[in-house]
């Protein structure tokens, strides 16, 4: 069994002071980063750092069990849930800078500063000189975990049981909220194939994305023989989000340069190189359609 030294007295040692100042800087930096980062993924990662710093703080304060629970539940479960939802909503979705109410942000920051000053002044006014420390309480029960267990299953057993009901309700609530009822019968592969033939718009499977030998990522549209990007090759979800990466311009430019240099080498009259701006109107239409009608996919 691993013995972690819990402070028998409430006073903090020098080592704990050093640890506190390091962790406090990390925690506050993470919190500020979470508020200031424009992208939700960066905010989530900053918050995970803050939570780990707080977990070490708990352990230093003698709450060993809570420190472990903090890492397992908060950084392990809750932050991963956050990241899943960020992925569902779209990783690169950025927050708006525009104020809905005029001057709301400035007012919010001023109110936050005032609140913080009030809170910290309140703590400073309280005469908290002697910290008893949980060492004696832990030792009486035979350890931190044993002490917490004794309290949970005796004094707080009613709250503990209500917690169980709360968790069950939350699980059912999440299932009810995210469940989608099928309004029509699920279409089989055969139904989809028959519908494709009946409609006749796109009988064959959709063309693959990517440019031969250069980019084969799913967000790069394939190029038609004349160098224009083909919208059909990119997934409708990516198109709706406007996450299509168009590389046709640089390819056409490079081809034009090559043609010009070849013509110069061979001593021909230089043909006017085609420029990508002629093709710029094509991808502009790509981001417009909303993902209402699902294209028949194979």
């Amino acid at each position, binding site marked *: 069994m691993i013995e972690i030294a819990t402070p028998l007295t409430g006073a903090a040692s020098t080592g704990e002071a050093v640890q506190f100042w390091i962790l406090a800087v990390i925690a506050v930096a993470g919190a500020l980063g979470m508020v200031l980062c424009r992208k*939700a993924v960066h905010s989530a990662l900053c918050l995970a750092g803050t939570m780990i710093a707080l977990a070490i703080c708990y352990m230093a*304060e003698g*709450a060993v069990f809570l420190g472990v629970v903090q890492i397992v539940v908060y950084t392990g479960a809750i932050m991963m849930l956050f990241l899943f939802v960020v992925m569902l909503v779209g990783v690169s979705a950025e927050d708006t800078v525009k104020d809905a109410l005029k001057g709301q942000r400035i007012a919010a920051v001023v109110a*936050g500063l005032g609140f913080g000053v009030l809170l910290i002044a309140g703590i400073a006014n309280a005469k*908290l000189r002697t910290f008893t420390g*949980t060492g004696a309480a832990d030792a009486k029960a035979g350890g931190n975990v044993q002490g*917490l267990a004794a309290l949970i299953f005796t004094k707080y057993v009613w709250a503990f049981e209500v917690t169980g009901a709360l968790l069950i309700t939350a699980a059912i609530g999440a299932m009810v909220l995210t469940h989608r009822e099928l309004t029509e019968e699920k279409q089989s592969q055969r139904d989809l194939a028959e519908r494709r033939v009946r409609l006749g718009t796109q009988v064959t499977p959709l063309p693959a994305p990517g440019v031969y030998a250069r980019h084969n990522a799913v967000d790069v549209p394939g190029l038609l023989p004349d160098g224009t990007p083909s919208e059909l090759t990119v997934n409708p979800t990516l198109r709706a989000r406007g996450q299509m990466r168009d590389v046709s311009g640089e390819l056409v430019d490079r081809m034009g340069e090559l043609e010009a240099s070849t013509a110069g080498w061979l001593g021909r009259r230089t043909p006017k190189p085609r420029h990508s701006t002629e093709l710029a109107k094509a991808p502009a239409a790509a981001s417009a359609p909303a993902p209402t009608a699902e294209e028949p996919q194979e």
Partner: protein
Amino acid sequence: MNPVNYLYLAALLFTIGATGVLVRRNAIVLFMCVELMLNASNLALVTFSRLHGNLDGQIIAFFTMVVAAAEVVVGLAIIVSVFRTRHSASVDDTNLMKL
């Protein structure tokens, strides 16, 4: 070092979280700010437990964690279902009841 510094840290984190709730527009980041406020209150509870020398503060912090987990599950489900219907995670876009 006086352990009361932990309380100052908790107050600071709570303030940052509260300001974030007021400043940000993305519903997911709002939820993260609420989580930060819950964490700050947990730190204060653990410090109070150390101040008084009994384990009740740690028990309450433990229950706070449980309630936070349940709250996140339901809240994120609401965000996902709103995103499905409105195609946006911004809290400014859910304004159907606005005159």
